[in-house]
């Protein structure tokens, strides 16, 4: 009971911090919109074999990107918490490290998830009328994806102490993960070497799952494999984070 309340309060804190900062929300929505509308529209010039509408094809990928960027970015909150001392307040409290990580990770994941929903709702703007049932079915997958990705951000935040360092590492992670995930090109037509590397990228499975669920098309793996990997990754990352926090006291 007390643990649940602690997680809830830490979760709520992440939400309040994020949504009180309107400029941050706008900034994090700008990138996916640019990709969807400018890149997506521009790429329509050439026809890719097997893809009827490129904008529709990348739409699940852009949702995946929104989740990825927002999640990784929110890991920076750990560094803020260290810098401004709030981390000490949490660490000396009589709660377990897992409670702290769950609160923070679910909070950050919820923020990414909500931003993903905003992108999802924009689908009619590219002429994509999603089946509402499919859209709703995509939500749990989106949340679990966000949770796993969020923990990548937290993990970096736990081990780094400087904002600059975080930003540098963030750019090393964001773009490769996004490009390799098959978000903007079909993996089954990519050169073998590239495809192999892509399967190391956890985002690949999320994007693939979202394509199958939302569009019912373009899937490269069976849905159940995607979902198992997405869930396993989230679980692994949450455990890694609470382990890391236990190891690093301050």
């Amino acid at each position, binding site marked *: 009971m*007390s643990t649940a*309340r*602690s997680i*809830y*309060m*830490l979760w709520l*804190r992440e939400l*309040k*911090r994020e949504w*009180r*900062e309107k400029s941050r929300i706008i900034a994090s929505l700008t990138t996916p919109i640019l990709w969807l509308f400018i890149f997506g529209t521009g790429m329509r010039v050439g026809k890719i074999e097997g893809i009827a509408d490129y904008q529709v094809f990348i739409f699940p990928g852009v949702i995946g990107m929104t989740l990825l960027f927002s999640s990784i970015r929110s890991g920076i909150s750990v560094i803020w*918490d260290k810098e*401004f*001392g*709030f981390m*000490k*307040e*949490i*660490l*000396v*409290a*009589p*709660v377990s490290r897992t409670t702290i990580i769950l609160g923070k990770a679910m909070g950050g994941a919820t923020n990414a998830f909500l931003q993903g929903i905003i992108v999802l709702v924009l689908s009619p703007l590219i002429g994509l009328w999603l089946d509402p049932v499919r859209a709703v079915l995509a939500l749990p997958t989106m949340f679990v994806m966000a949770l796993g990705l969020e923990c990548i951000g937290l993990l970096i935040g736990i081990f780094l102490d400087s904002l600059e360092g975080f930003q540098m590492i963030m750019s090393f992670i964001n773009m490769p993960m996004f490009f390799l995930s098959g978000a903007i090109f079909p993996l089954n037509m990519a050169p073998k070497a590239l495809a192999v590397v892509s399967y190391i990228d956890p985002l690949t499975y999320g994007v693939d799952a979202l394509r199958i669920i939302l569009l019912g098309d373009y899937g490269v793996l069976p849905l159940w494999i995607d979902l198992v990997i997405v869930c396993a990754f989230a679980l692994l990352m949450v455990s890694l984070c609470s382990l890391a926090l236990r190891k690093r*006291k*301050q």
Partner: protein
Amino acid sequence: MSEFAIETTNLTKRFGDVVAVNNLSLKIPYKEVFGLLGPNGAGKTTTLNMLCTILKPSSGKALVDGHDIDKEPDAVRKSIGIVFQDPSIDDRLTGRENLEIHAALYGVPLAEAKKRIEEVLSLVELEDKADKLMRTYSGGMRRRLELARGLLHYPKILFLDEPTIGLDPQTREHIWKYIKELIHREKITVVLTTHYMEEADELCDRVGIIDYGRIVAVDTPENLKRKIGGDVITAEVSKPKELAAELRKHDPTVTPGFTEKIIRVTVPEGEKYIPHIIHAADSLGMEVESVSVKKPTLNDVFLSYTGHAIREETGKWMGTMSMVHRRRIK
């Protein structure tokens, strides 16, 4: 149940080759206000961090509220409240939100927490600011909110690490007032660290002087000062010699020194002794032209107990300065 709120036995902390805290043995009874007085880098914060379970001791033992800091850190954490030296609030939340999170983390039941939050807010007089974002608070107000937060979960022992560092003198006195009020109202054990003699004097029942990680003296502020002689009163009168004789007649323990125009008396409580001087001068028909009291500084106390002045520590001092700076810019 231990009769001491805090009991340490040979508590030691090493960082590499540096011994930050060296065989510290202390007993602090319940409801005492205890001060660790020493210069920056003496080991005060390290000691506190060990007692708060943030740092693990290298050797030795410590019981906080009867719980071993090494074996039962969670029990220790439940018994204590902490106000850190550096700010530790979330300034993007309101004061009340910070307190609500604290209540949840410490498992104060919801209904109880609501009442208690009002109570601690009123103690530090922040009721009408409670719903403003913390970033709009001044340095003193943040400190007050941290005090309120430290008390929220009914701790048995409250740790205050340099409670007034980086605050201007006026705000400092203000904070003292709140600390005294909370000591009076909550009746809890308080352990504070400070490098201000006046702060220790103002707040503490007993003071431990710490240097190079060792306690060199533990006593009441009065006794500590008495041992080094106390406040020095300097008065300008026409016949210091007669006045000195008169003063000794009333209190043979004082040993006034004098020059042609000046009399110098060392007493435990300077302010309270001034009227005696005026009185004595009056009875001799003398006029006191000027009088001043010089309080013993930490440096004086230090010198007398350690045989050396507070060491120069440019690095540490700069650290403090930049912290003060950081506190300001936020």
